[in-house]
């Protein structure tokens, strides 16, 4: 039987827990665009108690359990959730920092370009933003002993790249593309918000964002 490298790579990435979007795995994402391919991949995954699923914004594919009645699957879900929950504060702080730096009205969308130079330029001219970056680097996800903003920002961007939230583009290594893993994170956050009863922020509560 003839092998299909794209199928193999797609299934391997999904089983490895990666999130496939047009920014992180453009080839695999394009491969998954057609319904017959989706069905083929899904059929394969179902034999391993897994299935193919999309984020709510329909911009990324990921793998989830087909049958959660098995205790090992439930434990796995809890374990995966703990990994996100432990780093959630750091991720939220990063999103907020970028919103303030870019004076953006929304958190990072998939496909957005982040330029290290531009971020650093704005952070280093505002002590409040520098303080936020310092605070960010005290969190486990971005922990570093570097005391300069450039070094701290580099660690943050590198760790987000390792975690699959960013992908470096170009040859300079200082321009990053946001992947659709952010969309997945927003889905998880939306669930937590409902589950834990976290109140939405109102724009009036945030004069700092307006000033920046």
């Amino acid at each position, binding site marked *: 039987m003839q092998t299909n490298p794209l199928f193999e790579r797609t299934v391997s990435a999904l*089983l490895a827990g990666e999130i496939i979007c047009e920014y992180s795995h453009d080839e695999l994402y394009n491969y998954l665009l057609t319904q017959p391919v989706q069905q083929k991949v899904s059929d394969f995954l179902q034999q391993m108690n*897994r299935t193919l699923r999309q984020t709510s914004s329909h911009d990324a594919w990921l*793998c989830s359990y087909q049958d959660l009645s098995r205790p090992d699957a439930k434990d796995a879900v809890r374990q*995966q959730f703990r990994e996100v929950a432990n780093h959630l504060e750091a991720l939220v702080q990063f999103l907020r920092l970028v919103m303030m730096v870019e004076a953006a*009205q929304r958190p990072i969308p998939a496909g957005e370009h982040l330029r290290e130079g531009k971020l650093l330029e704005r952070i280093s001219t505002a002590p409040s933003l520098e303080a936020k970056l310092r605070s960010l680097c005290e969190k486990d996800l971005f922990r570093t002993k570097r005391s300069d903003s450039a070094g701290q920002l580099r660690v943050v961007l590198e760790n987000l790249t390792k975690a699959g939230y960013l992908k470096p583009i170009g040859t300079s290594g200082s321009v990053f593309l946001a992947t659709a893993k952010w969309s997945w994170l927003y889905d998880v956050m939306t669930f937590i918000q409902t589950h834990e009863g976290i109140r939405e*922020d109102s*724009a009036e509560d945030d004069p700092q964002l307006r000033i920046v």
Partner: protein
Amino acid sequence: MARTHDAQSTLRALATYGDVILEAHLNRGNRIALNDDNVGVLETLEHHRLVWRLGDTEDLQLKNVLVRLLDHITESERRRFASAQVDRLWSDLNRLFVDYREAKKRAAFTDKSRIESEIKECLSEIIEDIRNATDTFSSYISSGFSYITDMDLRIRKNHEVIERAGQLNSLFESFNTQDLADQAGNDPFLKRLLLKYLPAALEQGQKNLSYALNQLRLTLVRLREDQRLSKLVGGFESYFANNRGYIPFIDDLDLGHCPAPLNNVVPFAIVARGDIYDPADDADLITLAQTARTLGTDQQGTEPAAALQTVEFDVAGASHPEEEDPVDELIEQLVQFVVDGDIGDGEIDALEALSGSGLALDAATWLSTLEAQIDSLAPNDQSQITVEYKSQLDPLYKDNLYITGMTLRRSNESRI
């Protein structure tokens, strides 16, 4: 005279910076960005009191007097309220139809001819307004209302434009084909205008408008989602700030009906090995083996050794003699001498033996190697050798001894 001069200077400034001013009016919400490219225009417009701002770091805004002029010359106002404009023109046209029929009935050919040209003019204005009205929405779509920075105001503006497009759409729908046909009757002049030119313009207008409406609705959905996510992140930030060390948990959930966002799999590693039992894979595996051998060398940035470029398989039964270590060899000889008693009074000084051997080895390494080798001898052999250490006490730490030499001697029991 001075006043005239100032006014002329202002008009010249408007002409000079016409492009920037029009761009600000049509696409940037009457705002001129504060950047290096716009320094000249901003200074000039400030000098002529045509822009204003509250803070030094804010973008400059065109003054209302200038905005009104721009509205007039770009027909923005007219287009903005196109539905009302078209409605008014249509009422005028209906009056002209009545006059036209009356003139025709009375055979007043001069009046009929005059009214015909008025009808043509009025209808061309309607068609022009229909085209302009739909074109104006494309500028909203392309800007995405990005010139409005506040999310709530942006959503409100989007709503407002959708409402305006809706009104225009209702007006277009009010032009019923049957009504137009009734209005035209059997008159060839009216038939040409009402059943040919007007329906074509209406059809094109409706097509553009429905596209614009669809895009505006999509923009609205996106803006609302942006607003939701912004509030979501803001809410979490506040919550983390007010609840130090908070970490969400789901241990209380049964997960019988697992919410989709939580259903994430643990990584499932797919590991495969080369099939060494299938001869068909031999060639590929040999190439892989070569790469594996040279990988370490490559990582250090040195050239791979020539011998590693190829893999040589051993011929069955072939053997490669292993080279002897000269230190081991010397120690073996020493031990043999001591045990056999082939030496003077049966004792050897280890350092003398080293200097006599010609080996380039430091004393400490030699002595420790010798001691280790003697320790590793079989108990019977070991019992035949007595080792005497020459030592010095450490001047500071009296428990420590520095070994400065060793004498190997055949033990007395073995001599007997």
